[in-house]
């Protein structure tokens, strides 16, 4: 191993601007997000803490992945993932509000289209917060729009038709995070003339366009501080300049976007697990039973040790995946999928164990652990279910060395 390789593998020594950003975000999470988390969680499903999101915007959370050229922070996927772990350790719903905005920006970033970038990316650097969303999931097509081999089988996908200098969209997207509060959406639809979703095409759609209707907010079990909503497109017209990539080239963009996003989702799951561990550690350090603190009892100690090890492993996996995504084009599929699958599982297992350590208090809302457990189940749904991730991972395991792969 060369010294350069060794340096690349040190995930505790981040560039100065990334360290500074994480430190700022950590303070934001501690001072602003955590104190409001329980109240916001218990609010009505469609309540949205704009004040909190505005504060996050002011420290750069809506433009962290945007390059400095367009007013962003340019901290890369590593910087974004570290920041999202910090916020998720206070409230993953707030982390996802920012993460979903970056997901909406991702197609434009990945397009390399400087005209599109110059039009959309500076909008996230103004004084007032602007949110975005990424609209893929539909009533009849979930994973069918994520796995390339499923594209021919996708049904009733939002349609895109070219009409002169415009594209016309018709259809309905479901469970779209931020759709209720976003100004823009990156929308994936199927170009007319292609079966299923084989003509998947990505278009940036201003959500104040005529024909766009936002539906009711889903009343979710967890992640209640971000809003998931339907969007309806009824003959929505957008200029052809809003096309991302090319016609029927949305598939590779969607896949690249997923690979780019998964380390950050893994970071959110890791943040949830870390939060559960922190609460459990505090409890087990102060609660006395049998004449001594809980953590001195061997059974409890084993639980805490397993939780700590899982959180550490989860951190290493997502940071390695994020580093790979920052260092390779196209973004690798394997490491992000492994990191997300592991971290999602870790969040659920650590939260569950932490709850058991707290006994009855773990089951009572006011202690906070009950919310962590509910949130823990959310991450494994979006940006790749365990089933979809397993297919991606095993495909990589069985992938034959490609003689055309220039890095082979």
């Amino acid at each position, binding site marked *: 191993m060369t010294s*350069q390789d060794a340096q690349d593998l040190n995930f505790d020594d981040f560039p100065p601007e990334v360290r500074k950003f994480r430190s700022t975000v950590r303070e934001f999470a501690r001072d602003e997000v955590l104190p409001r988390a329980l109240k916001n969680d218990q609010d009505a499903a469609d309540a949205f803490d704009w004040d909190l999101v505005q504060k996050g915007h002011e420290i750069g959370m809506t433009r962290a992945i945007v*390059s400095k*050229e367009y007013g962003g922070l*340019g901290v*890369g996927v590593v910087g974004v993932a570290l920041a999202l772990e910090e916020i998720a350790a206070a409230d993953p719903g707030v982390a996802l509000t920012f993460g979903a905005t970056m997901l909406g920006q991702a197609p434009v*970033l*990945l*397009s*390399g*289209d*400087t005209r599109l970038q110059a039009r959309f990316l500076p909008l996230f650097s103004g004084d007032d917060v602007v949110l975005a969303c990424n609209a893929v999931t539909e009533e009849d097509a979930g994973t069918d729009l994520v796995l390339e081999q499923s594209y021919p089988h996708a049904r009733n996908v939002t349609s895109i038709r070219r009409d002169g200098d415009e594209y016309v969209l018709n259809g309905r997207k479901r469970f779209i995070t931020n759709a209720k509060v976003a100004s823009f959406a990156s929308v994936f639809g199927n170009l007319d003339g292609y079966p299923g979703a084989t003509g998947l095409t990505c278009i940036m759609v201003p959500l104040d366009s005529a024909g766009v209707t936002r539906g009711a907010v889903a009343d979710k079990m967890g992640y209640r501080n971000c809003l998931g909503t339907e969007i309806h497109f009824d003959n929505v017209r957008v200029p052809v300049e809003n096309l991302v*990539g*090319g016609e029927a*080239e949305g598939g*590779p*963009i969607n*896949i*690249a976007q997923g690979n780019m996003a998964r380390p950050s989702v893994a970071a959110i799951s890791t943040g949830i697990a870390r939060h559960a561990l922190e609460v459990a550690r505090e409890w087990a350090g102060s609660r006395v039973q049998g004449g001594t603190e809980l953590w001195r009892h061997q059974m409890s100690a084993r639980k805490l040790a397993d939780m700590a090890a899982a959180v550490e492993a989860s951190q290493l996996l997502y940071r390695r995946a994020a580093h790979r995504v*920052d*260092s*390779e*084009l*196209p973004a690798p599929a394997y490491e992000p999928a492994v990191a997300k699958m592991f971290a999602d599982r870790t969040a659920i297992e650590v939260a569950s164990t932490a709850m058991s350590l707290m006994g009855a208090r773990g089951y009572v809302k006011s202690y906070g652990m009950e919310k962590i457990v509910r949130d823990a189940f959310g991450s494994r749904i979006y940006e790749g279910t365990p089933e979809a991730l397993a297919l991606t991972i095993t495909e990589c395991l069985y992938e034959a060395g490609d003689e*055309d*792969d*220039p*890095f082979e």
Partner: protein
Amino acid sequence: MQKFESTKQAEAVFGSLFSILAEDEAFTSALRENDMTVRLLHTKPECRVYVSADAVELGEEVPERSTVTIKMACDTADALWRGELMMPSAVATGRVRIRGKVAKVLELIPILQPAFDRYADIAGEHGIAGGK
């Protein structure tokens, strides 16, 4: 059938192309400001080009390390420089693979314009025609 018949022919084309960029102040300044070196590893046939703010080097002996490494087939490079293949599509489908400071590479694309403008003429001078 691949367009490039030999390493010598590929080096003549891509060497000339990057020599043009090496004379472009915007390009060299961008490399210098970002402390960036680029190694292009063309395949089919093999053709290695190393580009820094100070020089363009060709051949098997180019430096092994660079801040960015780009690998692609010569025919893929030909299609890219002609504007027949878009970089996002080439990257998304794995025809072009990049390792290193990815964000910096994407920022470089707009300042490659002088090379895009001249490529067809340079290729033609060395017997590489347009089209498939």
